[in-house]
């Protein structure tokens, strides 16, 4: 019941934030209409980071405690993170073409490290499919989940460490968080989108976690009872 309310709230919030970003906030004087994509781009990027950090923490939790809940959290973070990272890249490309004049530039560190981040976590999900043995699968995935997390700070600080097309961090300077240079309507649109995405992200995480737990329990029951015929129905490794 609670997740249903959360889901409905997420749909309403995302619809509201989208309407506000597209129809209420004026277009940027310099960038024009494409600037509206930034609300989506930044929100997607933040929740991609958060998802992968959760995967890393849960991976450590698994290696230390061997708790199936940790593996479920790690899987949820990775899968949801992949969706949000792909969204971030797509939004960036749709903004980049009209503003930078190109969809993509392999010479840009932020773009390249983000593409690597996406590839790493797609790899994480693929590695989970290599074995149906839950403990081995969770351990292998946990190792990959921790190694892949090294790229998160690299992506974030890439705009500081190296030169490229991408602008600096949006909220890198604490002073900018308290006194943003952007007009208040722009900040409100970004905060609204962040709030809406937080609801959607939480709903997706809870659902994916629940699915992972059910899959684990089903695999466990199949193995213990020897009912291999039902293994296909439980979709192991997904």
């Amino acid at each position, binding site marked *: 019941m609670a997740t249903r309310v959360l*889901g409905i709230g997420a749909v309403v919030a*995302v619809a509201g934030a*989208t309407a506000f970003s*597209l129809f209420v906030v004026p*277009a940027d004087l310099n960038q*024009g*209409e*494409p600037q*509206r*994509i930034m609300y*989506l*781009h930044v929100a*997607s990027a933040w929740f991609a980071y958060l998802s992968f950090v959760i995967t890393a923490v849960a991976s450590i939790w698994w290696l230390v405690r061997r708790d199936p809940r940790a593996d479920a959290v790690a899987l949820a973070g990775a899968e949801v993170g992949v*969706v949000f990272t*792909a*969204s971030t890249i*797509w*939004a960036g490309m*749709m*903004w980049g*073409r*009209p503003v930078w004049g190109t969809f993509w530039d392999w010479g840009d560190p932020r773009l390249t490290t983000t593409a690597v981040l996406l590839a790493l976590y797609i790899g994480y999900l693929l590695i989970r499919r290599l074995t149906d043995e839950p403990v081995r699968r969770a351990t292998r995935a946990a190792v990959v989940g921790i190694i892949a997390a090294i790229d998160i700070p690299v992506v974030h600080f890439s705009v500081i460490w190296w030169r490229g097309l991408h602008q600096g961090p949006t909220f890198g300077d604490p002073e900018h968080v308290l006194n943003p240079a952007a007009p208040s309507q722009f900040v409100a649109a970004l905060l609204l989108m962040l709030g809406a995405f937080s609801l*959607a992200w939480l*709903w*997706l995480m809870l*659902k*994916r976690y*629940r*699915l992972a737990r*059910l*899959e684990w*329990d*089903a695999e466990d*029951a*199949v193995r213990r*009872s*020897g*009912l291999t015929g*039902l293994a296909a*129905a*439980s*979709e192991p490794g*997904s």
Partner: protein
Amino acid sequence: MNVSDVVFVISAYGVILGAIAIYAFTLIRRLRRAQQAADELEETPNPAP
């Protein structure tokens, strides 16, 4: 207003919100199927040792 700029904005919002919605619906379907499988397993009597 540049028409091609609007196309990029629509492409960004349409694809991303659409992808998240499709992922959400897929999750609901997978969850329903997993729940059914779990219920079937629960109903199946354990084989004799």
